[in-house]
């Protein structure tokens, strides 16, 4: 240690992060942070640019499309919901900086659907929304750890956990591919750790497991992966990675005419995103996929039809895909949480509203949510589908059969869940 101090005045180019004065140091506030008589401000961080942004960058537009619709129809008790979006490029340290901006500079009431396990973890440890009492609604990651209400007291998941997904995949494998050699491609981080835990619980033994470090996925890497799957003579290959990994794999597989039975995890299984990378739709044909929400082409579904119509008007020409549906569904659930938080919502009342009523929020999912005073767990299952020649995911057998489970040792069971009907005009009651 040394006592030298810089005497040179540095140019103050930094963000002046002097916004959150102690409650004892400022006059009492009239309302909650981010809430005025006319507005409720929410914030979102996710990759809007860069290689990881493909597909995900449609989520803010989708959420805004619903909020615009909501605002045009009276908002939340007369308050318009606004969404401030920050691009974190899928870099955890950048997510920390951008989240700090949202909380300290933009003064959002709550964070909505931040994306990525590493990013949400980085924010949790460096920005401490839990300590600040800032709600983190419906994180866009299936990492099971975020449901730990003690560790992440203000964070709520929405996607089924990766453990749940792997358990349901495992059940499907045992019922349909008994005796086959199974291969697994997975991301070599908490995302993959969850998957491995789920498959282990399901009792799946793999002929070969191929991990890839986040960020290392590429066509060259995919060629190496295929070599390993071929060597192990895998009949079924599960791609439990992000879209860029799935796309790299399927693209190279098409070139090499390598065609095992593909099984795609939901994170990397959005056909629109895959096709945008140049992968021929036909490669997806007969691949098995999983989703908690209805097929995005299912216009008989009242939620899909409703969201699709709104989105088409808000973002004409943009395909209505899984990212869009999930983004709008999340915004719809957030609106119900805000409504349930009372005439003058606060951060505390918002959290309490999800605890007490979250499990009954109307939403498009075909599986139940598990929110309660003791659980921050969102959706709890998937239905199983197959991709059509055009690359669209439809339920196996033409009818949705949904499975539900937990992130522990609980069994995988067919759910009898009855989804709530769409509220009038798609607005929170």
């Amino acid at each position: 240690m040394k006592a030298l101090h810089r005497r040179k005045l540095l140019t103050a180019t930094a963000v002046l992060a002097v916004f959150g004065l102690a409650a004892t140091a400022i006059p009492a506030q009239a309302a909650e942070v981010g809430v005025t008589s006319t507005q409720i401000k929410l914030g979102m961080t996710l990759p809007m640019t860069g290689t990881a942004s493909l597909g995900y960058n449609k989520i803010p537009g989708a959420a805004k499309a619903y909020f615009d619709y909501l605002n045009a129809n009276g908002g939340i008790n007369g308050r318009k919901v606004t969404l401030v979006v920050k691009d974190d490029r899928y870099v955890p340290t950048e997510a920390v900086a951008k989240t700090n901006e949202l909380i300290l500079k933009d003064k959002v009431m709550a964070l909505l659907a931040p994306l990525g396990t590493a990013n949400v973890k980085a924010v949790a440890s460096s920005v401490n929304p839990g300590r600040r009492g800032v709600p983190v609604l419906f994180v866009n990651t299936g990492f099971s750890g975020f449901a730990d209400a003690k560790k992440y007291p203000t964070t709520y998941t929405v996607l089924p956990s990766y453990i749940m997904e792997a358990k349901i995949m495992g059940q499907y494998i045992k019922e349909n591919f008994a005796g086959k050699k199974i291969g697994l491609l997975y991301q070599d981080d908490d995302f993959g750790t969850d998957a491995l835990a789920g498959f282990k619980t399901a009792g799946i033994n793999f002929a070969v497991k191929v991990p890839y470090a986040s960020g290392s996925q590429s066509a060259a890497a995919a060629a190496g992966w295929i070599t390993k799957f071929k060597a192990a003579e895998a009949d079924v290959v599960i791609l439990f990675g992000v879209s860029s990994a799935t796309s790299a794999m399927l693209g190279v597989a098409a070139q090499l005419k390598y065609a095992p039975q593909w099984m795609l995890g939901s994170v990397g299984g959005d056909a629109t995103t895959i096709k945008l990378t140049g992968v021929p739709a036909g490669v997806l044909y007969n691949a098995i996929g999983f989703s908690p929400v209805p097929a995005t082409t299912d216009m008989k579904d009242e939620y899909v039809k409703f969201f699709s119509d709104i989105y088409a008007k808000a973002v004409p020409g943009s395909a209505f895909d899984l990212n869009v549906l999930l983004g709008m569904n999340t915004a719809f659930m957030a609106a119900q949480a805000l409504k349930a938080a009372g005439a003058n919502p606060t951060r505390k009342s918002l959290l309490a509203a999800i605890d007490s009523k979250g499990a009954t929020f109307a939403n498009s999912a075909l599986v139940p949510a598990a929110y309660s005073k003791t659980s921050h767990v969102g959706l709890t299952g998937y239905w199983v589908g197959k991709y059509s020649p055009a690359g669209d995911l439809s339920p196996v057998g033409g009818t949705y059969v949904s499975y539900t489970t937990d992130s522990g040792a609980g069994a995988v069971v067919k759910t009898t869940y009855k989804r709530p009907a769409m509220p009038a005009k798609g607005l929170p009651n």
Partner: protein
Amino acid sequence: MKKVRILSLLSVTALVTTVLVTAPTVANAAPMCDGKSPIQSCVGVTSDGAPYAMQVPANFNGTVALYSHGYRYNVDIPAGIPLIGGYKITNTPEPVPGGNAEVAKYFFSQGIAIVGSGFARQGWNPDSAIKTNVELIDTFKKQFPKTTKVVAWGSSLGGVITQGLAEKHPELVSAVAPMCMADNVSAELTMAGDFLWGIKVLFDPTIKAGNYSAGAAGVAESYGDLVKVFTVMGKLQASLTTGAWPDTSSATGKALAAAGIPSRSALLLLGLMAGLPTQSAHFDSISGPDGALKLTFPLAISPVLAILENGTNAAALAVLATQDVENQTGGAIFDNTKTDYSARVDAERVIFNAALSGNTAIDAMLGALSAANPGAPRAAGNAAAVAKMKALHQNTGKINVPTVLMVGVADPITPAGASQRLVDLYAEQYAAEKAAARKAYQASRDYKTPTNKLLMLWNTTPSNYTKFDAAGSPITSTAAAQGTNHCNFTSAQLVLVAKSLVQASSTGKLPSGGALYTAVRKAGNLSIDKGISVPWLKAYGDN
């Protein structure tokens, strides 16, 4: 991938204050004063041989600001040693931080005197330094009987000394400001020692990394370690993009290399294990050059470069401070025989997963560094020496008088967690004081809200600050970003602390409300957001 150049690994090397004072030689004599106006200067030597300097304005109002300087090496550093060579031990008095003229000018404008010593002993010295300060306060009061209030402040190890003074002698000070405060000796040297140990067992097993011989032989060993450590860091820097391991790597390191794990991932893991910041003077772990590395650089490279910058400072501290404290205690003081490095990085492994090359690589590295691997032998401390180290002055964190803390959130030498510890402990203290007030109310029906005695000033980093040249290489010739480097404060920030001390000493209350908000904003790059929370030093999480 473009070649990355770092022009200077060790960014803070100069130690000597700019206040030039002719050192007197007679210990414990009355101060020698020049009688000049408007500023009278006095010098003297305390009974333990610490030279001191006093500067007293003609309009002296009875308040004096006592400054404690930070760690100065306790040995001369030969000129041939890279980066820090040429240092000579000095006990030049330092009455204001770094001789900062603006700070002195502010105090004088308020009629406040300044005083500070160079301490009799350098190295880790809070025990003797606190005594020196107690004597110095008494000497000042005798020389200037008009004195009514003393405010104390200090930087780095001087922060420890300042806090220690307030804990042991709250009757002597009316307000204090430990800035960029070091943690207690054990936590501080565990941080530095963990990193140095990792460098040794992976990259150069001939590094001694503690358990130095007594006397001159030990000093020579520490010189040898400095050269080896800086050499290894240079090799790691040179092979950053290829991931090649230094030719001096241990068998354990070579096995990891053979497994395809890049050396940069191992270096980052060592930094995370030790708790070093992943933002440094020039690397924000956010920015990337335009082009193919736009995303890869912040994900995989920048955190490593940050550890390279910060770790070089930590390793130098580990060598020299460990050698010094071992000299004081009589044996090896670093002991990681029971440290669970895997638990240490549990939170960070997913955040930096890409730079660490994935879970498989992380697990392989942690396995190699585990106590079960004889190829990475743990360091065992000398029980008696460790006990003596723990008997050295330790701050409890008790806040007795109005206290201002200021620290950079990415200070690599005295991590912000040392200040966070005081913040957290004070939260408990304040809650207890409120509970006591409520209890008293039940008897008296007169509720008295306890006075807040702590103001935390966080020196934050900019949103992003890594700069790149036209070729895409990072630029490291610019000034260190705010919030990074050691005690990297502007004059405006220091003056804000000085003003806060003055106000607290005169009113008994720290600044608050709109006035504080405005003052903080004007000082620049500071935050008083109570939501900021940084981790304590890793040693506190060990079982």
